[in-house]
């Protein structure tokens, strides 16, 4: 200790002010202010307008009295539930397959799952339209095999909606389950086998119970996403498959429904919130972002009532497992030993194929010479690429999207990364509540968000501006950034920072020499995904853009609805290349996440 450091101590008052300014909780302020202004207030306003009728409930009564709406509501829940179930059944073997393979195979399978996850939903839905179309490969294949005489209509029915939605949402499920499977201690499986449990018993008694929270989280995320879906069902569904969210977009086109429209959105939002709320009570709200608790070590020491109830629930589960599952498994146990392993391989393999094939087909079609969609292409050419790059409409949409995405990424990363610092490094109360606010845009149906922002943007003149769209996209970008950056910050060894500080590094130097290098990969990934989120965003843009300013997804949307031509395949191929490039850049982070 030198005299210098002791003599120039600040006076007590200055210290308190300086210390207050150093409080990491202050880092949360910009993001929270931003979200409150552009996300919480519009949603509150949505509630206000929905109750602005002669009596507060008049619009809601209409929602529940007109069969068109409440039948559609029931149908929506039913479809979302079915899709979530399908995703669990198909996703679990796939997650196990990723976990059990090694080396190059594992990387390939993981990429096949992750890649579609980051490609725009619109493009993946378009791929399914190509695949299932009258001149698509499936019809062609069936005809070649002589199973059918002429092309059959595979599209625009309930089956294609379920197939499309399941395919689109599967990666989310696989990644969520994989996260919980990979966290399992390998020793547990070995211990179970050493205690005489066969592969099925290991699965039933050890693997399944321990990964149940992951399954639950995946199920809910898919279900909640399914409730608010409208891109995929609009494009793949027939007249009998009207989803609830579709009514909102359709009503929005005719301005007559002021009040009633908001009531529809509020119903959708409230249902989502109830589902998430109940799930959060049972398994903790961490399931939304798939992360660990943000609470400090002190809180972790004490057993909370939640864990107690969880213990009792597991007791019930055990009874069910003993009475029902176990006898069934005993019978299945008579099957040959390799059967379970092959189930995983075959099912996982099918899922991976289902995820990848549409994308590959679209990429091939982009080089087609034909002016309509047919597979395999009659001849090869680059004419659609030429058309894309020479068409001023497409190019201006491309530059618009690029500019908006860059601006949005800057907003989301600067606000989200500072907020993540604040969340991880401060000791404020209500930390979990703040984290919930920061990530909640993930679960609010985009249709509801778009509608709530619509009137706000009209009033302040942000409609159809770069800044307006970028800010709106940043609402969804912030959760992505917060989750990624918070995870990388939590992985930073505090001892390293302390080691630097104790040996003379000032807080800023500690951040520069220790913290920043450690979170740099995470920060890079966050920038990319925030960019991609905005670049792919369609639903908010539908509400908030003007006819004069089109983004790439908007152009795609218009074209998919009117003329299915190979230019769309070109755009899709370019998007895939963008995502592949991004994933290669982000690979260090993904690899680290996998090993952790």
């Amino acid at each position, binding site marked *: 200790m030198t005299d210098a450091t002791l003599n120039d*101590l600040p006076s007590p008052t200055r210290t308190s002010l300086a210390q207050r300014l150093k409080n990491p909780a202050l880092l949360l302020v910009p993001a929270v202010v931003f979200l409150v202004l552009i996300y919480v207030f519009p949603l509150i306003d949505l509630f206000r307008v929905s109750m602005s009728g002669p009596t507060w409930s008049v619009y809601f009564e209409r929602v529940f009295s007109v069969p068109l709406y409440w039948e559609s509501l029931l149908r929506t829940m039913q479809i979302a539930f079915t899709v979530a179930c399908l995703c669990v059944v198909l996703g679990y073997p796939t997650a196990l397959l990723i976990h059990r393979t090694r080396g190059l195979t594992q990387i390939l399978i993981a990429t096949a799952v992750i890649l579609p996850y980051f490609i725009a939903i619109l493009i993946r839905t378009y791929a399914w339209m190509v695949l299932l179309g009258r001149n698509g490969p499936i019809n062609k294949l069936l005809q070649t095999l002589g199973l059918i005489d002429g092309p059959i209509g595979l599209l625009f029915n309930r089956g294609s909606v379920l197939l499309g939605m399941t395919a689109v949402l599967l990666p989310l499920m696989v990644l969520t389950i994989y996260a919980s499977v990979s966290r399992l201690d390998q020793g547990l499986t070995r211990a179970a086998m050493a205690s005489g449990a066969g592969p099925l018993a290991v699965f039933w008694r050890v693997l399944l119970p321990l990964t149940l929270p992951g399954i639950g989280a995946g199920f809910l995320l898919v279900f909640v996403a399914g409730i608010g879906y409208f891109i995929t069902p609009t494009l793949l569904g027939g007249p009998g498959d009207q989803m609830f969210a579709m009514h909102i977009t359709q009503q929005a086109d005719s301005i007559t429904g002021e009040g009633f429209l908001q009531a529809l959105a509020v119903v959708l939002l409230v249902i989502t919130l109830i589902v998430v709320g109940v799930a959060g009570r049972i398994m903790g709200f961490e399931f939304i972002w798939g992360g660990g608790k943000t609470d400090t070590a002190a809180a972790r020491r004490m057993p909370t009532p939640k864990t107690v109830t969880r213990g009792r629930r597991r007791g019930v589960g055990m009874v069910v497992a003993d009475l029902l599952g176990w006898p069934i498994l005993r019978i299945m146990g008579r099957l040959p030993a390799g059967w379970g392993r092959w189930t995983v391989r075959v099912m996982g393999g099918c899922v991976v194929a289902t995820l990848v094939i549409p994308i590959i087909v679209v990429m091939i079609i982009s080089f087609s010479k034909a002016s309509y969609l047919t597979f395999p292409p009659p001849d090869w050419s680059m004419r659609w690429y030429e058309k894309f790059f020479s068409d001023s409409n497409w190019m201006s949409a491309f530059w618009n999207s690029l500019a908006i995405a860059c601006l949005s990424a800057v907003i989301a990363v600067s606000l989200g990364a500072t907020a993540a610092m604040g969340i991880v490094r401060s000791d404020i109360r209500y930390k979990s509540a703040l984290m919930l606010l920061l990530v909640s845009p993930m679960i609010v149906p985009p249709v509801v968000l778009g509608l709530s922002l619509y009137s706000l943007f009209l009033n302040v003149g942000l409609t159809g501006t770069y800044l307006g769209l970028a800010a709106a996209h940043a609402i969804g970008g912030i959760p992505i950034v917060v989750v990624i950056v918070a995870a990388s910050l939590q992985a930073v060894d505090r001892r390293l920072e302390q080691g630097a500080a*104790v040996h003379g590094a000032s807080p800023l130097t*500690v951040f520069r020499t220790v913290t920043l290098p450690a979170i740099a990969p995470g920060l890079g990934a966050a920038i990319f995904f925030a960019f991609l989120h905005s670049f792919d965003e369609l639903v908010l843009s539908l509400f908030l853009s003007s006819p004069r300013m089109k983004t790439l997804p908007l152009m795609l949307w218009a074209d998919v609805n009117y003329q299915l031509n190979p230019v769309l395949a070109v755009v899709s191929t370019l998007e895939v290349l963008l995502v592949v490039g991004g994933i290669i850049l982000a690979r260090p982070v993904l690899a680290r996440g996998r090993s952790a």
Partner: protein
Amino acid sequence: MQIPARREMRSELPDVQPVSTAPAQQAIGSSISIRNVVKKYGAFVAADRISLEIEPGEFITLLGPSGSGKTTLLNLLAGFQNIESGEIFVDGKSIQHVPTHRRGFGMVFQSYALFPNMTVAQNVGFPLRMARIDRITADRYVAETLEMMRLSDHAQKLPSQMSGGQQQRVAIARAIVMRPKVVLMDEPLSALDRRLRESIQIELRELHQTIGSTILFVTHDQSEALTMSDRIAVMDAGHIVQVARPIEIYRRPQSRFVASFVGESNLIDAEVIDRKGTVLTLRTPSGHVFEAASRDGDHDKRATVLVRPERIRIHDAATPLSMPATVISALFLGEVLRIEVRLDDGQTLLIRCSDTSEMTLPQVGQQLHIGWGATDGWVLS
């Protein structure tokens, strides 16, 4: 090793003379005074009004079970956490408002905390770089310190390319490269295997003699504490229960907790029947009489007596101050025999006697006569 103190170089005041030209001398460590320090985590009191005076240049060990507050105390000293109430003075000056990076300490972590992206030389040179010491001087200091820790051949390696023992030596080198007046060590040897630990213990002890810093060493390993320390502060549940030299802690513990935490111990509850100066005569429940020393001769009616296993002697025949005992188990451990016996009132005692050529390993169930002298028993207060 004759290296001038470097800590002063971080000073920005002109009146502090740079000492690089001063004659070779030992750096002298700081005195540390911890007064009534309190730290709570929620309802859990990690440090409960702890006071401790540490002499300049002393090697003091904080010894205690996990959760006793020793690491908390170290973190408060380093400034990683804020004190709730109380104060810490270093060389008579409060460090309450001095941020960690200006306290000028060295620290060794249990997990080493070496920067994975820097080479060994860069790791060791980190404190010098932070103090803005010029490159040439810094390089010299790094080379000297690496030489001292016998790491010169590894200067350009990354921490991940080294063994645990080597990494820990790098961490120690980083902590002492500035010749800080205070070095904090948080269980630095607990991740190493026994043999390596023992050799680094001796190295650390010699290092302390060389650099003269005040060293605060945290451990839960009592033999480590006994080997290395000038003094040991035994901690339990947020309190310091005894501070004394290792020999004092071992021979004259103040409480049951210290007696049983440090070393192996036999604790015998007995009734006091007589007193001669500081020596008490006591009687066990089954009526056997023995003697034991106490601090000042004051006593209650009943007392607990500590007899270390190596102080118990086995007699060939009964004597007035011996008692009969039955062998429960007998193990040959190399240099010692470890014998467990049961007295006729049911209490079991542990005996360690050194291996001699005439000694035979007793059989289980065999009857022995055991006893100890007046100076071998210690009455706990």
